[in-house]
């Protein structure tokens, strides 16, 4: 499956400068990492040397080093240093594929097709945002979104609107959430949720519990669907 457009990958808060995180989109593996200057990067999660996941590596300044043999790559994905061959002028052909990246609405986004790179990411949120949490669920992304209106919070039925591709707005009484929908794999999904404005700590706690309930509910629904499929 070709990946088109922008995909939410991780809450910006959850990837501090000098750290990396592995992620998947439609089953394909990527690493999101942030250099010491705070710039995010999204690459293929595979060292060209022996295939080790780059997300297991170490960020050192503006380089990321593979955990396995310490090969170091600059922010363009070019290998710059091989510890076992310190005098080697590393050829340009040793390079990790890199992808378009943007940070918007408190979420780090990646794009994996050349056409989308350079286009404005969605959502273009410039207001006051408070990161809530990422919810990972063992169910298809569409099912996770479908279950949101069926998961009330203190008697309030969530009002869900799709505002852009892979972006939904969730009205919950006096709080509005924005969620990036990540199709992790065929039966795995993630919602990267931020709250607009500055909810109180108590509100954030209630919302976090609601998100947990949503995950349990969606996974139960996915299990029920699977049982029905087997029984049919």
């Amino acid at each position, binding site marked *: 499956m070709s990946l088109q457009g922008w995909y939410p990958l991780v809450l910006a808060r959850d990837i501090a400068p000098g750290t990396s995180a592995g992620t998947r989109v439609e089953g394909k593996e990527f690493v999101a990492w942030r250099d010491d200057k705070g710039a995010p990067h999204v690459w293929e999660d595979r060292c060209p040397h022996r295939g080790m996941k780059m997300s297991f590596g170490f960020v050192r300044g503006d380089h990321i080093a593979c955990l396995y043999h310490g090969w170091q790559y600059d922010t363009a994905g070019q290998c710059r240093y091989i510890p076992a061959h310190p005098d*080697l002028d590393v*050829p340009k052909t*040793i390079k990790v594929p890199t992808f378009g990246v943007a940070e918007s609405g408190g979420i780090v986004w990646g794009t994996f097709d050349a056409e989308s790179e350079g286009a404005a990411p969605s959502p273009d949120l410039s207001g006051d945002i408070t990161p809530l949490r990422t919810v990972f669920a063992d169910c298809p992304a569409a099912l996770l979104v479908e279950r949101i209106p069926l998961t009330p919070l203190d008697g309030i039925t969530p009002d869900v609107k799709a505002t852009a591709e892979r972006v939904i707005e969730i009205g919950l009484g006096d709080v509005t959430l924005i969620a990036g929908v990540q199709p992790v794999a065929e039966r795995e999904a993630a919602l990267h949720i931020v709250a607009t404005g500055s909810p109180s700590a108590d509100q954030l706690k209630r919302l976090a519990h609601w998100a947990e309930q949503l995950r349990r509910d969606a996974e139960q629904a996915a299990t029920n669907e699977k049982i029905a499929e087997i029984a049919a």
Partner: protein
Amino acid sequence: MKRESVIFTFTGTIVPDSFIAFARHRAARLDLPLALLASDDNSVAVAVDGQADLVDAFDMACSLGPHDCIVLDVERAPASPALFESRNERMGQ
């Protein structure tokens, strides 16, 4: 780093098309020019030129070979740099 021009002769159970494609891919990954010198069902001879460590890496990679070939022996001999001169001139080396 020191440069080397080397002729490798890989012998064993060789599927020439498969092995040659494998060797070309590895040489390209290591940015080494490769000249195919000879091939049959028992052996493939190629010449490569470049930094010594990269030539050694090519040796190691090809000694494992593709999944459908079994390399039993690798012979290594100096190659004439003339084989690669035109390419190196183009690259300013």
